């Protein structure tokens, strides 16, 4: 699958051949930092001074590289596709090779960063449980009522919530049976076939 680069994008990346080999490494590093931590104008200014190029050009170059890397990682394009996609830019072979290397080295990390942007439901973190027996209450003395009290820890967008829940032994066994069935589903032929064919 080929990446389509817009005219503006190509213009931004156009500064790369002029900048030279060392600059490409520097810009690549800046692009990755931008992906990890967000835009850093000071770092761009420092790079501009060191490489003797205008700040705006550096900024555009970094942004262009960032976009190139994220799009390629998102679509998980192969080496050949990547090379064919940047071929239109008309760069030297050396430059193409260093760009490809940059992509391959950092693809996994970029994909995990992008993975965190996906919409998410509260996700399971852990469960604590406790066995209780109710012996008496205001309305009834001399009881024996077993119950399992649980604290369910969930993660929602980096907040941890804890919820206290209770259940009786019969429901507990029912829960276990149902969830074991759920786990078993992944191992059925149907699911295995789909997983195999989707790759």
């Amino acid at each position: 699958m080929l990446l389509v680069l817009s005219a503006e994008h190509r213009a931004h990346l156009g500064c790369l051949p002029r900048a030279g080999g060392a600059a490409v490494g520097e810009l690549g590093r800046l692009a990755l930092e931008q992906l990890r931590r967000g835009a850093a104008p000071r770092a761009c200014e420092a790079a501009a001074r060191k490489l003797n190029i205008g700040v705006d050009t550096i900024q555009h170059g970094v942004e262009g590289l960032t976009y190139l890397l994220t799009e390629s990682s998102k679509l998980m394009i192969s080496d050949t596709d990547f090379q064919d996609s940047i071929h239109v830019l008309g760069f030297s072979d050396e430059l193409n090779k260093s760009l490809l290397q940059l992509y391959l080295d950092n693809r996994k990390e970029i994909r995990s960063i992008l993975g965190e942007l996906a919409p998410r439901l509260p996700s399971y973190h852990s469960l604590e449980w406790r066995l209780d027996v109710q012996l008496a209450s205001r309305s009834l003395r001399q009881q024996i009522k077993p119950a399992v009290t649980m604290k369910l820890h969930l993660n929602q967008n980096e907040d941890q919530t804890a919820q206290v829940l209770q259940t009786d032994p019969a429901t507990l066994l029912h829960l276990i049976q149902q969830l074991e069935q759920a786990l078993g589903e992944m191992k059925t032929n149907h699911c295995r076939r789909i997983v195999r064919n989707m790759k």
Partner: protein
Amino acid sequence: ILDDPDLKDIDPTVLKHCHAAAATCILEAGKQQADISAIRHLYTCLEDCKLDKERIEQFCTEYQKNKDSLEILLGSIGRSPLHITDVSWRLEYQIKNNQLHKTYQPSYLVTLNIENSDSGSHPDVSFSCTMEQLQDLVGKLKDAAKSLERATQM
């Protein structure tokens, strides 16, 4: 009670008093878990109130008949943390999202149906988890069940 044809002839205030008294008596007996010895206690208590033998017998027999349902009713009154009544689950296989293509990840969506004794139902608790996390959850629930079993054998 006020609409009952058999009781039409009695003064409503007296009727209400009787009803309230009988109800209180039954509740107190039920609360203290009246077993055989306590039934006798109830018996003597009613004797002190100068009811004749036949009526006392009738009262106690009726009480015995309904004792169990009374116990269950009284036991269900009271506060407790949100109670899980059921669970539903959904298995999905993620292919892509708008930020990342070719994700190929299975994930489970589990919903716990919750009932609140005070205010009827309560929004259900839903969460997503991976296969490993679900295995962890099931493992912990099984530990709880095992300790329950051990406790009953003690």
